[in-house]
């Protein structure tokens, strides 16, 4: 959804009218600008190499993520560069899940051989085969970790490295605006203002 800077500024100045806080009035647009900048920087500068995954592991994780949020008529986890978010997560705030991923990927490989002896890796399987395999591990800890990371990377603030070009937000109709004004949705559009309702003033 396109944002409207003029309207946003107008709303902002109305909101701040009468406030003695000159700092806030002066700096709020800069704060917004900083957010925009960081966001676009994260978008153009995709990481050249992985911090945690080997290229082979990366291909496998990306294939799992692409089944969690698939690419169909609209872009999915792959296009949203969820993989980079997961890699960064495992190198930073979710470091303690590294072992779970390493072990989970080994088991994914074993499962692959077990179910589809001719396949080399999970990422080489056909999509129906991948789904069949994932259904056998969907209750497990590894799949749940990848699921949570994929969803998080798909919908995170783009500054975090996922949600490339706000693909996740666009899918669900979230615009990421820092400033909104009413009406917000369909049902509050023609709201006449609050009036006392039936039995107002009387306790039923």
């Amino acid at each position, binding site marked *: 959804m396109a944002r409207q800077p003029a309207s946003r500024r107008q709303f902002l100045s109305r909101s701040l009218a009468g406030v003695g806080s000159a700092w806030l009035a002066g700096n709020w647009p800069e704060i917004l600008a900083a957010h925009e900048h960081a966001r676009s920087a994260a978008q153009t500068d995709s990481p050249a190499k992985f911090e945690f995954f080997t290229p082979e592991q990366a291909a496998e994780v990306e294939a799992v993520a692409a089944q969690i*949020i698939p690419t*169909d008529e609209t872009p999915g986890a792959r296009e949203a560069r969820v993989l980079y978010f997961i890699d960064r997560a495992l190198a930073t705030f979710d470091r303690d899940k590294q072992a779970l991923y390493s072990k989970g990927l080994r088991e994914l490989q074993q499962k692959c051989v077990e179910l589809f002896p001719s396949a080399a890796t999970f990422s080489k399987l056909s999509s129906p085969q991948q789904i069949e395999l994932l259904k056998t591990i969907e209750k497990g800890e590894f799949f749940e970790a990848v699921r949570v990371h994929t969803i998080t990377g798909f919908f995170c603030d783009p500054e975090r490295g996922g949600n490339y070009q706000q693909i996740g937000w666009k899918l669900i*109709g979230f615009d990421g605006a820092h400033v909104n004004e009413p009406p917000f949705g369909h049902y509050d559009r023609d709201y006449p203002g609050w009036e006392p309702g039936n039995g107002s003033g009387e306790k039923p």
Partner: protein
Amino acid sequence: MSIASSKSTPAADFLIVGAGAAGSIIARELAVAGFKVVVLEQGPYLKTSDFDHDEVKIVFESALVNDTKRQPNTFRRSDQEKAKVHPAVIYGRMVGGGTVHFTGNMWRLHEIDFVERSRIGAISGTGFTDWPITYADLEPYYTKVEWEIGVSGLAGASPFDPPRSKPYPVPPLPVKSSGVLFEHAARKLGWHPYPTPMAILSQPHRGRAACVHCGFCEFFGCEVGAKSSTLVAMIPEAQATGRCEIRTNSVVRKIEVDKAGRVTGAIYFDAQGREQFQPAHAVVVCANGAETPRLLLMSKSNLFPRGLANSSGLVGKYFMQNGVNVVSGVFEHPLNDFKSVVVSRVLHDFYQIDPKHGFYGGGGMDARFEGTPISFALGGLPLDGPRWGREFKTMLQEVYSRTMEIASHSTSLPVETNTISLDPEVQDAWGLPALRMTYRDHPDDLKTMQFFQDRAMELLEAAGARQKWVSYPVHEQDFAFHLLGTCRMGGDPKTSVVNKYHRAHDVPNLFICDGSSFVTSGRGQPTCTIQALAFRAADHIIRSAKSGQIKSSA
């Protein structure tokens, strides 16, 4: 003891433990009244400019709350079980405490909340009792909270509201689509929805800006300072006096006493993990309804072998937390309820459920949406719905902008065996005993929750939801946001921990004021009451100090 600086550090008039909902108010009141105040706060001092919309920081990095990795909790259902490591409580861990990240609901208690025991009678399995104060005693302080903290609302809009001496300082926030749907449906059912009182400014007030409807309230700090946290509403005024020092990243491990049984100050770990001692003429503990009893229980001494201020044995007992459940409904057109504040309409028709249903309790229901994108995608869909794959993606795409939620909040009865205590084995990162929760909902509380879940589903039906589900079902609770009742106030030192002015019965220069002071749980939104109690406690502490009952320099 290898404690630095105990002799050289000058004594504060008052040492306050915790800069949250209550502590910040008391700090401001005492400092403005001329006292020297030191506040020890375990968390950091963040500014509005530090807040953003980064859900990852909130969901994965515990940016604004207690960190269960460094501060493990343990949980058990009864004292017959060994408690297991389990995140049991969540609270704001920073200057401003939970008021920084909370949703902003500001319900007053009603008259009945203070006198339920004498009106209703005993309830089996509970320590149900009246408060030592009435609604009328607290009313002026509720008004003070609304005006000095800053609450948006519409006086007289609910026929169930208790009497008030003044309207709200600023009008209600704009209604959201969820609020309109809720209002129409509730009226169809004969109920009385009204604009929710919120600690978020609809208009500029006391030098602070109004809400810009960014939608990142719950679990987030407000970037424009429109949310009326004590961080923006109280702390700057406390510091402007030049008499209030906020010492952050300071983890208190013990309150010390002298041979006469008076508190002398507190031992704490500073930001570098070194032990320090801060002397004071009096101590006010405002560490929240879980950490306050934990600190008192850790403050054992020869004079107080069961823990400080615990001659009654009730420190940590009667823990209450409020029942909660959430249902979701999907509508034909976009609500875009991710914009603006979480809640815009509420109703209190069931504040006291008719006892002929066979159980005691009550509560309120509100129209809300808690769906920042990641949290909705991970927790907003039906529990038995798709969790991944094409169907999952399609459902998110279809429902995110068209969903609203109804949350119900209800009574927790005071049960003596529901407790906060010290875990005998597990320790936190400072080597202190972990916080252990023992909790089992009273059967009436579960029935109350179920009653509300049923009413909420009726409401969604009446609103014309094309699809609806229970997103946070009634269940035996093992995790608490609202931390109440663990140092209950009362007139009798045998059956309560503090008197009606929040002074510990056992220790003349020790005060305790936060959710722990509650005698009953109210119906679900305790912040306004915690803050009214804090203003009231501060008045009495100032009066006592000025009349020489507490040694001080003012």
